[in-house]
């Protein structure tokens, strides 16, 4: 779909795949036939540029037809270049980094006021954590003890220009969240079983929110994209797409045989 669009964010969409799968195929209570179902859990993609990953998972889950994925970034499409509220299953338009966690807090506060057991998840990029609003929000979540909220950082170590360590080092990242009143879990962000376990563990934590620091590889599964900053905001051309799909296919077959 990025190749068809001729633009989009490949790297962060690949690093988040297993995170989204463990949410949409395991953890989230939701109904693709009724996206506004009142009993659903809520997911906010704060790193709105990584919407290709989210749109793909939503389409495969049945929120909208898969064929629509090829309208991504095209004139008149619901599939806007950054996550868009008008897409079934998308809970908020995002795209200006750093704004999602505050929205997630508001959703959790509303659920608390209404006595609902809604769980709220918010996926952030690690580069996004440079934004000051994230830490304003982190203090709110911790201070208000929003234990129905689970944050996830896609810790792929790469932002637009370079490595996070070179732009504005985030470490010690876990301690920063802990200092804001969060329970912190480190997890392999490409291990679905480990992610499922971490999401369950987060739900058992009472009295404080939980942050999953999901250690990932930007551009995961495509040799020429992995750990390459230049693939943050770039789409593959036809030839690159063929190679990428062949590699992903090969990896899938390998894993299927192994299991």
């Amino acid at each position: 779909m990025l190749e068809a669009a001729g633009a989009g964010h490949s790297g962060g969409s690949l690093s988040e795949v297993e995170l989204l799968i463990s949410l949409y195929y395991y953890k989230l209570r939701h109904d693709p036939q009724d996206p506004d179902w009142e009993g659903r859990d809520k997911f906010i993609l704060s790193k709105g540029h990584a919407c290709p990953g989210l749109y793909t998972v939503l389409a495969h889950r049945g929120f909208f037809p898969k064929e629509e994925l090829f309208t991504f970034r095209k004139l008149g499409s619901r599939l806007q270049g950054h996550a868009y509220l008008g897409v079934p299953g998308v809970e908020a338009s995002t795209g200006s980094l750093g704004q999602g966690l505050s929205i997630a807090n508001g959703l959790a506060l509303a659920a608390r006021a209404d006595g609902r057991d809604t769980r709220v998840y918010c996926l952030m990029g690690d580069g996004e954590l440079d934004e000051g609003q994230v830490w304003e929000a982190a203090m709110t979540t911790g201070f208000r003890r929003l234990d129905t909220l689970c944050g996830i950082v896609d810790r792929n170590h790469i932002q637009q220009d370079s490595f996070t360590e070179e732009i504005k080092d985030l470490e010690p990242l876990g301690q920063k969240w802990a200092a804001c009143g969060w329970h912190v879990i480190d997890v392999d962000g490409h291990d679905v079983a480990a992610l499922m376990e971490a999401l369950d563990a987060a739900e058992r934590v009472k009295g404080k929110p939980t942050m999953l620091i999901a250690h990932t590889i930007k551009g995961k599964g495509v040799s020429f994209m992995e750990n390459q900053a230049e693939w943050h905001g770039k789409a593959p051309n036809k030839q690159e797409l063929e190679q990428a799909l062949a590699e992903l296919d090969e990896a899938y077959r390998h894993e299927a045989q192994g299991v």
Partner: protein
Amino acid sequence: MRPRVSEVKKAATRDGLGQGLLELGRSRQDVFVLAGDLAESTRAHLFQREFPERFLNMGIAEQDMLGTAVGLSLAGKIPFVCSFTVFVCGRGYDQIRISVCYNNQNVKIVGSHSGITVGSDGATAQALEDIAMMRVLPNMTVLVPADAIEARKATVAAAGVPGPVFLRLGRAAVPTITAEDDPFEVGQARVLRPGRDVTLVACGIMVNEALHAAQLLADDGVDAGVINVHTIKPLDVATLVQEVQATGAVVTAEEHQVHGGLGSAVAEVVTRHCPCYIDMVAVQGVFGESGEADELREKYGLTYQHIREKALGLLKKKSARR
């Protein structure tokens, strides 16, 4: 000097907010109020006292406060976000643009300290750009009530307007010039007096000045009409065009920069629908400074005298043309 149009009662428009929020709190369960460490200054503390379970003090963090309000709104609540105008509009502009307006959420943004009459805090606290910043945003409604009574009505009305609303209020006590039983409808300007020679179009605390100017102009033999434009967006084009066509001359008056505010909004309408002589009473593209509210209005050209002078100037041009 003759007495003011209304010396009767004085109250700040932020006091109207406090009363309006109380009214809303009592009449509907879905109204929440968020404050950014300025609960008392904004008068949000009145709501806090009566409805602590629906009040959130978010600290000095306007960006987070706006985002939290969006989350509440997505879940069906009607949050009022209260802070000084410079902070909520300035610090939170991108959050207002994307989280609030692009999502078209039911968030009501209240700027309690607008304009030069914020006074001795000086330029950093005197919001003079906010009308321009807010009215340019898609989906946003912009309300600028003229006194405390109208501010209370605007607060209550804002809860019923679907989508984002910006409510521009002031710190200083100003004459109460509207009555309890005056109508208030979002998007409907109020013609306070019709005129044949010139139309004075004002918002906020400048409505009182425009009324006063109209009285003085009557002594000059000029029949000046006065319109209270409490809704800058959507602007009441029909009423404006109807009044301006009768006079062919407009003076706008606002406690805001001359660029992008009420004057610009009115100019956008008259140039398209009824080209005419127009002048603007506003701050002329400079920052304010510390001082008393009335001293500052005098120094920065925001009094009935300034309106009167501009009106007479336009009439001179009009008669020279004939």
